[in-house]
């Protein structure tokens, strides 16, 4: 039943007004503020809605493991190359030690590094899917990300299973220096081999994808898909602004811009991701079209 207040104040205003006050009154961890529209969202509901804001449709970042769980069929997953773990070969140290940064990232994310790889089923079709963990040092690509990626691609090749990658990354991992740069060549070469063998590869860009990851594995999909509002580019907006000394156009490097400039094939809402990818992959592999999910 709606109160007298609902009748006199439009919903949007009430939402915005309510945010601050309500936040201070609720137990920590039950509500999440949408970074785009600032609406306070009830976490269990948000989770059910695949981390898409129920008010403005903003697609929030999703941890790698959750991403694969929401993408693949329930109880169908087997992890690939989990045993590959990071080594600080250079003993790299900036204001913090790389070793300590790794330990901190591992603690926060409960992952060993920034890529999780799984074999599993997508609406009944066998696939290999990998996802970047953005909270692990900005999803940066170092030796472990590269190695897990090519091992997953190898499972794809050997078993003839379509390969899907959800990228979210700031680029190459500076603390691994040239080795991280060479992961671009390594992952791209594995994808080229996959292509030669006629195995489909779908690259899904999720916000954000930059630098060494966009300029390698993320832009090499047979089909490149982006989530709404995802940003992708080679150079970040700040670097470009400093170089060209111009203000960047509205929506620069966002998925709508990417579609307009021919960089991606389609923009797909998270709720349609499973069905869309499955439809395309089943066609590419000449399997029966998927039956729509309830």
């Amino acid at each position: 039943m709606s109160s007298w207040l609902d009748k006199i104040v439009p919903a949007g205003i009430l939402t915005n007004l309510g945010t601050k006050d309500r936040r201070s009154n609720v137990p920590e961890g039950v509500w999440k503020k949408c970074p785009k529209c600032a609406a306070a969202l009830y976490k269990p509901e948000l989770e059910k809605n695949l981390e898409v804001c129920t008010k403005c449709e903003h697609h929030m970042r999703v941890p790698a493991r959750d991403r694969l769980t929401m993408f693949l069929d329930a109880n169908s997953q087997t992890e690939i190359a989990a045993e590959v773990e990071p080594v600080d070969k250079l003993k790299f140290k900036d204001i913090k030690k790389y070793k300590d940064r790794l330990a901190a990232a591992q603690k926060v994310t409960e992952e060993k590094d920034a890529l999780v790889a799984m074999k599993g089923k997508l609406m009944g079709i066998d696939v290999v899917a990998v996802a970047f963990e953005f909270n692990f040092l900005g999803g940066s690509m170092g030796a472990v990300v590269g190695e897990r990626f090519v091992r997953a691609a190898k499972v794809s090749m050997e078993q003839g299973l379509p390969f899907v990658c959800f990228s979210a990354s700031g680029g190459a991992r500076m603390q691994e220096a040239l080795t991280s740069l060479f992961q671009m060549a390594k992952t791209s070469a594995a994808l080229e081999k996959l292509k030669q063998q006629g195995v489909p590869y779908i690259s899904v860009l999720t916000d954000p994808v930059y630098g060494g990851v966009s300029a390698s594995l993320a832009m090499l999909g047979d089909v490149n898909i982006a989530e709404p509002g995802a940003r992708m580019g080679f150079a970040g907006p700040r670097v470009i602004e400093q170089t060209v000394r111009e203000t960047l156009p509205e929506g620069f490097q966002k998925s709508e811009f990417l579609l307009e400039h021919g960089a991606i094939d389609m923009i797909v809402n998270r709720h349609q991701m499973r069905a869309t990818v499955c439809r395309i992959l089943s066609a590419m592999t000449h399997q029966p079209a998927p039956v729509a999910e309830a």
Partner: protein
Amino acid sequence: MNPNYLDFEQPIADLETKIEALRLVGNDNELNISDEIAKLSAKSVNLTESIFSNLSAAQVSKVSRHPLRPHTVDYIASIFDDFDELHGDRHFGDDQAMVCGIARLSGRAVMVMGQEKGRSTKEKVARNFGMPRPEGYRKALRMMQMAERFKMPILTFIDTPGAYPGIDAEERGQSEAIAYNLAQMSGLKTPVIATVIGEGGSGGALAIGVCDQLNMLQYSTYSVISPEGCASILWKSAEYAADAANAMGITSSRLHDLGLVDHVIKEPLGGAHRDADLVAASIKSTLISQLAELDLMDADTLLDRRYKRLMAYGLSS
């Protein structure tokens, strides 16, 4: 300050100025003065030796960007014969930051290419300071695929601060252009030798750097991000560029020790610009002998070897 010398070379510059001044007054008291010149010249060599025997990564980075350092077009002119430059990506335009063409290496037909920074101010602008746009990478790939068809080896020269970070470059797919080159180069059925001659800046360098043999000139650098860029992100200030250069290990000797670079080509004392012909001759003989080895492999062996090299990057042995 003498612009032909870097900051840490100023003591050498001062000595050289003195020597030059002595030469000008050379006519009176000839004997004494030539003695003095010889003494100072020896001192200058010693000083150069002592400075260059112990360069920090940041100092090497400065040598790699020395204003007199030979560029791609200089090496093409001195190493090869009958160079015909070929232009354009056939889709959008001709990127002058990337120079490509057919030439002869000691009689043998080859495809050569590399980033070119330009020398004069006007030329630097025309060549965008050696920062290619997507059309530059697509031109390079067109030439590589042509080389494959006509069974020419591909010789690339790397010298770039990086791929151009601009609005137009993003609009035309800078990421895709680089990514596609990386993928395609891994499967080219012809030998590829890459030589870093100056600055090997990130993905913009690697986009012509997937190869069977990776060389670096002694005082060149190769890194995932510029020391300044790395410092401003990890140290929150570009002032720490020297620390970043050191931490990343961007020098030829360090990268050779790490097994990421196959061969280091020595430079004359003081850097390549002190004797560009000598460096060109070293590069030439290196390329000839490396090609002779790669020639012994058939296409499948070559591709298999290249793939295994790529897959081995980052594996802890």
